């Protein structure tokens, strides 16, 4: 699990850090409950100002991806915390519709589609 910053990139360093962490959390490379390094540690290791990393962490927290607690540090949130239940249902429906469209396009049976979904869920 490595985070990298390109000083020559037009993307600000805080956004590079935020984007990489968000991707790792989204793809579960960083599973729920994983403790992230302290702001000071990550800033020192990357050669960035502490405020830069602090901003990336703040934005991740605002997105509900991480939770920061005094004396406990920053950990990956258990699930998209902060998202209202209706929003969760809406996103789930969207994903299900997209999956159903792929199933129809491939012409596979409902049983096969269910089995593939079960496999996918059991792997995550």
């Amino acid at each position: 699990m490595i985070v990298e910053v390109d000083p020559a990139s037009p993307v600000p360093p805080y956004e590079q850090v935020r984007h990489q962490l968000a991707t790792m959390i989204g793809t579960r490379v960083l599973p729920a409950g994983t403790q992230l390094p302290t702001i000071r540690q990550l800033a020192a290791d990357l050669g960035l100002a502490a405020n830069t990393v602090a901003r990336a962490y703040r934005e991740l927290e605002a997105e509900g991806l991480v939770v920061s607690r005094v004396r406990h540090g920053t950990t990956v949130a258990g699930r998209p915390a902060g998202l209202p239940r209706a929003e969760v249902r809406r996103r789930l429906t969207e994903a299900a519709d997209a999956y159903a469209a792929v199933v129809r396009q491939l012409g596979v049976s409902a049983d096969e589609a269910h089995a593939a979904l079960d496999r996918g869920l059991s792997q995550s």
Partner: protein
Amino acid sequence: MMVVADVVVVGWLLVAGSFADEPVSAGRLAAFAQRHGLVVTPTNGNQVIRYLATTRRWRVAGLSVGFLASVAWALPQQRVYVNFLTAFAGWFAGALVAEARLAHLERGPRRAASLVPRRVDSYRSRVVSALLPASIGVSLVLAVTSLVVGTSRAAALIWFAAALAVLCGESIVERRVLHRPQPLAPPDQLAADDAIRSRSLHVLAAAGTTLVLYCVLGQLAALRPALAGDAGQLVEAAAILGVFVAPVIGLVAASARPRIPLRTA
């Protein structure tokens, strides 16, 4: 008397100077590698040698300052005297300075870092970490006892303040060791860097604990006159025993099995 003092001081400076400048031996490097299960390579070997040389230079410098201060302190009394505690406190101060001045791994062209948090527990067992706070606890109890008993209050509080100063110095440098930058580097260099941090944290805890225990012995000596009978004898026995036990505790803590943090790709 001055001639004897001059001979002692010059002799010490010659011995300490030559020892501090001596190249790190292959045996010392091998011992470090064995203790930490480190595979020495041409690159990380130099890293470890730099660490061993820097820490030895500063520790010897600190020890020398403590030694000379002790000799200078005794000179007005027309005697040549070396106080072990002063010399050891100098050594500890030198160890703190060495850790604070140690260079970190160089950043390569890629600015990358691991997401594994560095914690004291990853490098040192909780038992070793608990020794210094426990010693401070004993010192606090003795300071309070001296206040209650009402004897040598000033001495007891000065020893307690010295113990707190050791704790503060150790804590500040400990945080510095943990937060010393560790940019992404080849695995052998990262392994050496982790081994160095582990060694530093063990030495700081062990030396800090020993120093605080000597402060506790000072408190016991101050408390002794106020206690009569069995209690007095018990305190006296503890003070005598402590002179030998304190460094043993320090040595055991310093040589405790090191931990190396788990790294995931």
